[in-house]
């Protein structure tokens, strides 16, 4: 059996790889969506935080012998703490002015971080080994899937759905959403809104770092890994609808699949297909697929 001239088996394999990449997009765009939705900040430093997460894992292993599983915890915590520092010292001064300033600030921070890491580690980057428990591959019949990639899909979808549940279905999430809608009123009910906002930004940064650790064994850890990805992830967020959490998850996965198929049928266009879709969506639905018009 063939689909569009390629064997069904190869087609399924490509879909699965698209899903793997899509789950990366979902996790990164989720962090962006949370930060934008709750803080109104367009966090251009997200790609850099993702890169720093990967480097925390690399340095932890290379210098201190700390393995992958601990890195999965350490990197998000450290980068989350870095996020808290950024929020306290810089971002919180910008909430009352035009969002463009937040964008410029975070973009500048990203360039600085990239420059520093380029100075420390060179652009060719470093290799991070696949953890022992996840080495090898499983034959699925239609393709041989490296175990690590399967783990990435499971881990990132779990994190995505967990975050969605936390924000949309729990009391804490309700506070968060109420706090962004009307901070003065929520504050009046005795909830410390500034601390909540700070922790949200930290958590968003932590998500980026977690994605970085998950990516480290698959792609070369380089100072440029974030900037290669961040533009695509922004397109995902715009297509899904700025601030829509479920939208960013679903769009991330869907665009991973579309991109995967483009790599088969017209590989030359695989790095622009996401932007073509973005342009179409912006024309048809300016608020994005899942966004609400204001």
């Amino acid at each position, binding site marked *: 059996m063939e689909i569009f001239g390629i064997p069904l088996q190869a087609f399924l394999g490509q879909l699965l790889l698209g899903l793997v990449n899509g789950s990366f997009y979902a996790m990164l765009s989720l962090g962006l969506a949370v930060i934008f939705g709750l803080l109104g900040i367009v966090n251009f430093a997200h790609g850099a935080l993702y890169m720093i997460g990967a480097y925390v894992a690399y340095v932890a292993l290379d210098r201190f012998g700390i393995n992958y599983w601990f890195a999965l915890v350490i990197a998000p915590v450290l980068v989350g703490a870095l996020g808290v520092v950024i929020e306290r010292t810089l971002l919180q001064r910008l909430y009352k002015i035009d969002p463009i300033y937040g964008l410029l600030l975070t973009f500048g921070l990203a360039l600085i971080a990239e420059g520093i890491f380029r100075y420390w580690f060179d652009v060719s980057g470093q290799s991070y080994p696949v953890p022992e428990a996840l080495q090898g591959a499983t034959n699925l019949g239609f393709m041989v899937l490296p175990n690590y990639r399967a783990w990435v899909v499971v881990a990132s979808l779990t994190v995505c759905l967990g975050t969605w549940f936390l924000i949309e279905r729990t009391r804490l999430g309700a506070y968060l959403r109420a706090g962004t809608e009307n901070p003065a009123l929520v504050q009046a009910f005795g909830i410390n809104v500034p601390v909540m906002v700070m922790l949200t930004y930290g958590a968003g940064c932590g998500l980026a770092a977690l994605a970085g650790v998950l990516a480290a064994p698959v792609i070369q850890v380089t100072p440029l890994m974030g900037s290669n*990805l961040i533009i695509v992830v922004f397109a995902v967020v715009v297509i899904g609808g700025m601030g829509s959490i479920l939208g960013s998850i679903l769009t991330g996965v869907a665009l991973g699949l579309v991109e995967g198929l483009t790599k088969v049928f017209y590989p030359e266009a695989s790095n622009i297909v996401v932007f073509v879709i973005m342009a179409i969506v912006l024309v048809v639905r300016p608020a994005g697929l899942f966004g609400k018009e204001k």
Partner: protein
Amino acid sequence: MFKLSHISAACALALAGIAVPAQAQISGDVIRIGFITDMSGLYADIDGPAGAEMIRQAVADMGGTVAGKKVEVLVADHQNKADVAAAKAREWFDQQGLDMLIGGTNSGTALAMAKVAAEKKKPFLAVGPGSSALTNDQCSPYTVHYAYDTVAMAKTTGPAVVKSGGKSWYFMTADYAFGTALQTDATNVVKASGGTVVGAVRHPLATSDFSSFMLQAQASKAQILGLANAGGDTINSIKAANEFGLTKTMKLAGLLMFINDVHSLGLKATQGMYLTDSWYWNQSPESRTWAKRFFEKFKRMPSSLQAADYSVTQFYLNAVKAAGSDDGDKTMEQMRKLKVNDMYTKGGYVRADGSMIHDMYLMQVKTPESSTTPWDYYNVVATAKGEEAFLTKAESKCSLWK
């Protein structure tokens, strides 16, 4: 006021007229060398800031002056954009009185800069770019292609791999000038040595995930995966090939790999691979001495391009010295006469089409066990003589070489 400036200009002209015959004819009383390369992107390690430093060092090692005039080096980052490169080159030639331009990595930018240099009648010495178009269908009387080109890479690596049993090939090609040139050149060589090409996939520059392409390569059932890409793309290709078990059924042939790529991937992932390079730090006592200085500065070994950056600068300055002028046509004439004999190569010469003809080396990456010292990565398996490695007259489409 108007009159006064006219008078002073006339005086200056008159003075210049008197001064010139007495000394070397150096425009603006300074020899200005420009270097435009990828300073921050995926090719920055193989050339980039360290390459710029080697150009400065080459100038310093000649005393900082040639023919009694100061030598100045300008450096810019083209960010892998051809329009940025061309605009910068034009600005330097027009406003800074640039005398010679060294082209760094990325063929797209080099082809654009070569056109500007030809228009301004100034030498363009291409070190980093690989596309053979620079000396083939787009050759120019002002372009010298110094370190390597896609033809030389393909002609040295291709037959060796076919001979070792790799008859059927599949290409992983970077989708721009350099990648497509490399694939075309390698295809010709593979076919000429009795091999076949079963397919190819073109990926965008700076792709991070190669898994989809690996699956396509695997489905082709070819014996050899020819990597017609460079830098970060080659690194991520090799990583994905290892992860998807491609290396068990296929062998990888890196058509353009630098020592930095091997270093960052490690010998475990790269062992046994064939690759071609124009220079290896451990090839001779002279190269070792030179590389040691580099190592002390950068804590890593130089790539062939960084060695060539040093070499090309002194080659040009020697031409200026011989011509007694930094005029574009006069220095080009001298460069066609002079031989390159230094730590980079022996007996190299510039041919009519602009190729600097010199020996190329086929290397095989060592196994982790056989590598005894840091950066001890290659065995030099064969040396390809310059005349055999580069384009032949029959193959050339360059109108200057007929």
